[in-house]
């Protein structure tokens, strides 16, 4: 063989060995929008895939009418010993290959969450196709049940759910957005704890309504009797579900874990007799500073909260143009925030879960002492006290100086 021939051979080998050989046409793929992970009674895993039916989603192509005649997604479940087995066994049931790189959200059933997330995490980190940027959501019951429910008016429930968490954590910050990646980080941190939002069907509904939420009929109504919504925060410790926090407690935890972006704070008007009058500010920026302090017997966490907001709504009858009124309102905001944080903190201490990541802060601040604290951190955590200082500022009270209904 000539030298040139050898050179070309080397080139060809280079191509063949290093080239991409996973060629697959788009119409040979079932793109999944959401995955559900459940632990069954017989100790097997059940993986549920919400696959996107492209032709139902994109209208006007290929001559088909598409659109409303068919739901945009289809859910099917596979029972198996491992996740990968589920992925492989799914080929027994589907005509196309399951493609999970575009998976936006993974639902975790309650039992699976209690059993532990390490297997899921391992799968996500090991598999090249699965992305670590998938949003995690815990469900109270079976994840596969929730996968089947539609989220009108969005056609793709999985994508919509991910967007919901995204927007919520951006605009409201009650429930933080947790990606698999964040979960991995928390499992490797000192606190080994994290809070994950819980999605549920809410509303008063009977069996009929539950069935309807799984069918296209739900799109025919202007308001579905049952709705998918984020309701709680599930706190995990060492990868296992430990308990739930309600909305307000979760907000408190969001403050403590510095996950507040924008938010809304409703607070009572100060010293106003009679009816319960509430005002509301839109938080433009919230800055939480956590400084661990060491006292003789335990640690104290100094929580400095700085809030800047716009007064959006008030029914207080006081004159807002006066500085004192603004100061009074700011004081009320501070009180409200303090109480929110305390509620969340109380619940965390009750559960004994350090979902705020205080362990890492103390480790970083007192690296030498950490060695001794580490062993009985659970006890130490319960001893931690909070020293909350809220500095709330109403930056823009608005041009309207007095409430319309005010007498003075």
């Amino acid at each position, binding site marked *: 063989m000539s030298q040139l021939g050898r050179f070309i051979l080397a080139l060809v080998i280079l191509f063949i060995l290093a080239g*991409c050989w996973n060629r*697959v046409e788009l119409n040979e793929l079932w793109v999944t929008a959401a995955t559900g992970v459940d632990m069954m009674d017989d100790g097997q895993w059940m993986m549920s895939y919400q696959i996107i039916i492209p032709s139902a989603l994109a209208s006007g192509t290929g001559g088909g009418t598409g659109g409303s005649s068919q739901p945009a997604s289809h859910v099917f479940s596979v029972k198996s010993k491992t996740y990968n087995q589920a992925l492989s066994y799914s080929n027994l049931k589907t005509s196309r290959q399951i493609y999970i790189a575009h998976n936006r959200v993974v639902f975790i059933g309650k039992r699976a969450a209690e059993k532990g997330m390490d297997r899921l995490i391992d799968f996500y980190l090991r598999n090249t196709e699965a992305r670590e940027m998938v949003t995690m959501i815990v469900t109270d019951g079976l994840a596969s049940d929730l996968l089947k429910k539609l989220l009108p008016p969005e056609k793709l429930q999985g994508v919509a759910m991910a967007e919901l968490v995204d927007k919520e954590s951006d605009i409201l910050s009650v429930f933080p957005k947790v990606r698999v990646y964040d979960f991995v980080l928390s499992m490797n941190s000192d606190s080994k704890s994290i809070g994950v939002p819980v999605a549920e069907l809410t509303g008063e509904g009977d069996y009929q309504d539950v069935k309807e939420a799984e069918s296209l009929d739900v799109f025919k109504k202007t308001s579905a009797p049952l709705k998918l919504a984020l309701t709680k925060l599930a706190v995990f410790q060492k990868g296992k579900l430990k308990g739930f926090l309600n909305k307000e407690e979760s907000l408190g935890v969001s403050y403590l874990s510095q996950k507040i972006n924008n938010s809304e704070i409703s607070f009572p008007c100060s010293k106003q007799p009679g009816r319960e009058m509430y005002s509301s500010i839109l938080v433009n920026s919230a800055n939480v500073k956590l400084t661990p302090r060491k006292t003789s017997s335990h640690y104290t966490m100094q929580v400095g909260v700085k809030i800047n907001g716009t007064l959006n709504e008030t029914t207080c009858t006081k004159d807002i143009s006066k500085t004192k009124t603004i100061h009074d309102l700011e004081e009320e905001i501070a009180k409200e925030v303090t109480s929110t944080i305390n509620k969340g903190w109380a619940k965390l201490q009750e559960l004994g879960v350090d979902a705020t990541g205080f362990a890492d802060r103390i480790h970083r601040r007192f690296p030498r002492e950490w060695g001794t604290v580490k062993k009985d951190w659970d006890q130490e955590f319960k001893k931690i006290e909070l020293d909350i200082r809220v500095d709330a500022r109403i930056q823009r009270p608005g041009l309207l100086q007095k409430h319309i209904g005010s007498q003075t």
Partner: protein
Amino acid sequence: MVDKLKKWLFKQPSRSKNGTSSEPVNDKKSTELSKELSGTLKDNVTLLKQEIGHSTDFILRCLNDKQGNPVLAVGFLQGLIDQQILTTLLEELTAGIRNGDLSDRNVESWLMDRIPIGGITCLKNEKALIHAVLYGQVVLLVEGSTKAFAASMSGGAKRAVEEPTSQTVIRGPKEGFTEDISTNIALLRRRIKSTELHFDSRIIGSYTQTKVSVAYIRGIADPEVVKEISRRLDSINTDSILESGYIEEFIQDGVWTPFPTIYNTERPDTVAGSLLEGLVAILVDGTPFVLIAPVTFFRFIASSEDYYQRYDLASFLRIVRMASFFLALLLPSFFIATTTFHQEMLPTTMLITLAAQRENTPLPALLEAMLMELTFEVIREAGVRMPRAVGPAISIVGALVLGQAAVQAGLVSAAMVIVVSFTAICNFVLPAINMAGAVRLLRFGLMLLAGLFGLYGVLAGLVPILVRLVSVNSFGVPYMMPLAPFYTSNMKDLFVRVPWWKMKKRPKMIGDVNPVRQATEQESFAEQAGEHSRDPMA
């Protein structure tokens, strides 16, 4: 091994072999015709008749004196002569004979003095005589003289100076070169009225005897380049040159690359601009396309209009063109690669839309793209070749049948039609047709690589292309010149064009001999006004 491959891949055609070969192609006559002219009119007339006289378009007229003895013969090829001038010439000649002005002795001086023609040359041998006839001159043979005279009155059917069709501009001169080299030279002369503008003419092609003229501005053009171009032109030994494309292929560098290393243009203003930058132009008789060398890659992205429009708009359009170049080269291959190998790179909604479109398409994306691209190439070619009258048919077939109907029939996906048509449009943005052709060729290769190896393949295709681009020279100037090797000074006229008053120097390495283009104190009036502005409040 690599060296050998390099040698094999990049070897230049050996010119020395052509240059040293002393045997001309089909040039037997040149030796036979080197004789001196005979002193008798009869012999010379016989010679002319023998050589070309049997053709019907060759006209030979003998003029007799009062005694009936032939004194003068006029010979010319009918179609190449301006009939009007010929009439005046013949009138003058016959009048001269009738009046007896033309006697045997003073015929030569009489001709020189009295003939109402600008250029008249003296021919001394047979070869020159034949050439003069073939070049559209009128030859005058005089009894008893060993000299013949050629009066240049070339005329006949000639295309007028028209707007160039291949390179149109919105703003800028609308005249283009014609097929006639003397007209073309005149067009250039009219633009550059300088004694430094030189035209070196030579004749190439043993049958076609094509006049090829090398134009350059002495003092700006690199003499080495002029010498090299002349050398390469002289080494061409062929029987025909019918278009400048022949010359281009004979003398160009970088044979093993689809990228052109010689620019061609129909526009005199482009040639003038290039000459003033120190480039050399090669004009070929019989074609309106003038070659310009040496050129770099970026000249093919620029349009002559860039220099006539406002600099900001010109810069913007140049960047658009640059982007179009990459899109035209890479868009289909990127589309194929991402949709068949790297689905994770697409946004979810886009993936679903594309997947929905592909739901009913039978062919894999690569084949689909190939099919559409080839279809487009066919349509394009048909559009160029077909008679004007059937123009609408092509657009109907192209747009409706192949675009709309193919999608509805489920043969190709709508996205592919968009990709292919956008690629095609991007391709048309490139002002130089030969560069657009290079892009078209490479696109198919890259598509194939994308379909087989994904983005890895695209990259593996792009690397050799880039390596080749930076290794090619055009008459000693590196092809990617202002970028590799990097010249900061040339950046003013690369991706953007700075205002004219900022471009004080000619591009380096091309116009190195005489670098300064305009006075260094040249500045915009805006700047001057800033210094001397009147204060309205004062």
